[in-house]
């Protein structure tokens, strides 16, 4: 009963502290919204078409026309004719950043098998990313065109080699090869012989019509902020100590465990509420900025258990932080740094596999990783309680370790 009184007192203090409410609820929502908007914009950035000034000194040439057509075939660049007389001055003066030049006699040279070079020139205003993007496209198109041309030329040579044979045995005639190559090249552009088609696992999509998972991981942020809420318990214990009210509570007629439970309960409830509010806000608000809303799966009980265990784990971590931290700096700044970095290596911010084997292994040593695995299993893979027992077990183990260590280190004074 005493524990409930302490919890109620702390909850009332929290409810009156608008700043805390802002920090625990609006910061995560604001961050998720701003971050997902930036994420969406970055995706559009990849689709952006770069205008490339093009000097064509071989106008009307068969191969040069083909090259221009291939460069503009949805590869992220769009060529724009530029005057050969002014190109150097425009590059040097910064009017244009880069320019691609097709040399004179390009088509004739290529047809004759004589090496020819496209010139990608850049001036002081050019950025590395632009030059890199154009270089990749130009090299890709040039390689493809080279190969097609050389291949037809090579096969034609075979035709020449058999030209002395009787006509009925001349299989590789130049005309026949060109026809065959032309038909295959044309067909391969839209229908390559070997293609790759992607889909989601049948086991996941079965019974889930129009399954389309979000590419933006709002759940990771919700979990990360739930663990950052551990600072609420730590700060509450620290402030009570600083103001001397902790001693008053200690001399009051209540057991120590009641005091500890009373301190933990508000954090536990706040963490649960925070996750519910953050996920609900993501579902409602993310579609408004063009992102797919997070899915919740079909195992509400499993989802509830994950939420409860994350909240419990965060609260236990708060007790440990409260026991370990001796100064305001440690409670605030240092633990913030630790919790953010733990979230990052645990995969809450970016997928943990991209950090490489070493950091990926370290990532498994933080509870965020297991919480996220459990959450994704239920929401994205449509799994149920039984399937996520290992992850729940890990979260329970972290909770036990944090709580026991916190209890052993805790000084009731």
């Amino acid at each position: 009963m005493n524990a409930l009184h302490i919890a109620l007192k702390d909850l009332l203090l929290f409810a009156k502290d608008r700043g805390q409410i802002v920090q625990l609820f609006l910061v995560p929502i604001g961050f998720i919204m701003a971050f997902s908007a930036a994420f969406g914009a970055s995706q559009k950035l990849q689709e952006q078409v770069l205008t490339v000034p093009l000097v064509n000194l071989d106008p009307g040439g068969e191969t040069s026309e083909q090259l221009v057509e291939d460069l503009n075939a949805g590869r992220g660049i769009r060529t724009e004719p530029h005057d050969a007389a002014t190109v150097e001055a425009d590059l040097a003066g910064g009017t244009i950043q880069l320019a691609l030049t097709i040399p004179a006699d390009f088509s004739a040279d290529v047809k004759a098998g004589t090496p020819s070079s496209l010139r990608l020139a850049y001036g002081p205003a050019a950025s590395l990313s632009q030059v890199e993007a154009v270089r990749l496209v130009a090299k890709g198109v040039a390689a493809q065109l080279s190969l097609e041309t050389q291949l037809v030329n090579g096969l034609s040579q075979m035709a020449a080699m058999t030209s002395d044979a009787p006509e009925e045995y001349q299989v590789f005639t130049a005309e026949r090869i060109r026809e065959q190559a032309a038909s295959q090249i044309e067909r391969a552009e839209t229908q390559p012989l070997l293609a790759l088609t992607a889909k989601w696992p049948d086991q996941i999509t079965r019974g889930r019509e129009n399954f389309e998972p979000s590419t933006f991981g709002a759940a990771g942020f919700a979990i990360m902020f739930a663990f950052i809420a551990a600072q609420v318990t730590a700060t509450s214990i620290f402030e009570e100590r600083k103001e001397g009210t902790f001693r008053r509570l200690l001399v009051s007629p209540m057991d120590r465990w009641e005091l500890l439970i009373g301190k933990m309960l508000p954090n536990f409830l706040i963490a649960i509420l925070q996750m519910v509010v953050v996920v609900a806000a993501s579902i409602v608000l993310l579609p408004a900025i063009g992102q797919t809303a997070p899915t919740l799966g079909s195992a509400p009980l499993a989802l509830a258990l994950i939420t409860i265990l994350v909240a419990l784990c965060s609260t236990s971590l708060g007790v440990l932080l409260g026991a370990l931290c001796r100064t305001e700096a440690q409670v605030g700044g240092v633990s913030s740094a630790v919790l953010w970095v733990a979230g990052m290596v645990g995969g809450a911010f970016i997928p943990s596999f991209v950090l490489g084997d070493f950091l990926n292994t370290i990532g498994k040593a933080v509870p965020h990783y297991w919480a996220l695995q459990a959450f994704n299993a239920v929401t994205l893979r449509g799994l149920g309680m039984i399937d996520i027992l290992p992850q729940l077990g890990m979260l329970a183990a972290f909770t036990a370790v944090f709580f026991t260590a916190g209890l052993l280190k805790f000084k009731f004074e």
Partner: protein
Amino acid sequence: MIRHTLAIAWKDMLIVLKDKGALAVYFLMPLLFASLMGIAFANTSGSGETAIEIAIIVANQDRGTYGQMVVDGLKQATVLAVTEENDPTAADRLVAEGQAAAALIIPADLSDRIDAGETAAITLIKDPAQQEAANIVAGVTNQAMAEIGMLAELRYGVHAVTSQSPGYDKAPPEMAAAAEAQTLGVIWTAVQQMRQSPVIAVEETAVANTKELEDWNPMTYNVPGFTVAFAFFLVGTMASTLLAEKEEGTFRRLMSSPMPRGAVITGKILAYVGIVFLQVIVMFTAGSVFFRMPLGEAPLALALLTLALALASASMGILLGTFCHSSKQADQLGMVLGFVLLALGGTIFPVWKAPGLMGILCRFTPSAWAIEAYMGMFADGWTLARITPNILALLGFAVAFAAVAIRRFRFE
């Protein structure tokens, strides 16, 4: 006036620098964040020393040559850890359970269809919880398939042409196949040679007075990105310490002391300008020493840009202080502001380059102007002239914030 200003600045700097928590947030966190993002970028772009390994399942049901060629191609990719599985349903289940990021199902009729000149498709099953990894698998598979696709096209082409020769139908199938294989072998060898010396090359040239471009170092974006983001996390601290002085009564004492009022505010701004400079020095030195991040060739431009950034951050701090009622509120609102600027200002993605509303919105944050200029200097060798608009934009923010702050500030 100058003596008083410097005294106030020194006092405020000492307060921040003695706060270990603040040091962790303003120096350690940006360094850790930038390092982790840099490692992530290097690993996914293939330039990292620590190779990543993605688990995939391959269910090859094709008994012909093409299916095995795809499997062999995938096994050669160091980024993939390939496990073979006979049953496609089991492969689907393993991906659904998250035991592999993706599965590739090679259909039984793959080689037959290709040999007949019909299109064939390999199915990539992606784990929705590991989409980034599955997309890498798609990229690697497409690369492996491009080579095999070309061979398939050639084989089909040779067959199509050869089969038109007189007497082809009457020739024993083994003899026809041997003739086709021989022809293909000759052509394929020629193709490999052609690839070594393509008839069309791309020559890259820099016009006069243009620096040769070097390989892009992701740290030229990550380090400035997080340095600028955490320079704006100082906004809350500045506003909070200002209000804490008012709450504790020390501000009144300063007001009643024989020093000009302007010296108090200027001193506080100077302190935070100094801290931003320290942040920049620590971060950029660490970036340069540990990650070989280039620092550009315009030290004066670097100093002026940092000064403009520091002024924008400090004046925003004073402005926030005039809107808040308590130091705690300032601290918390400062954190909200810091996170919003981190996301919208282009720290994680260069949003200022994006088309549409987001790109425009990003330009309304001082962070975007600062990050763009630092990145331009470090990656592309931008000069003072090139970053002058960015410096002016930052100074514009500083003047605007200061103007509103002066109107609202209460010296009491």
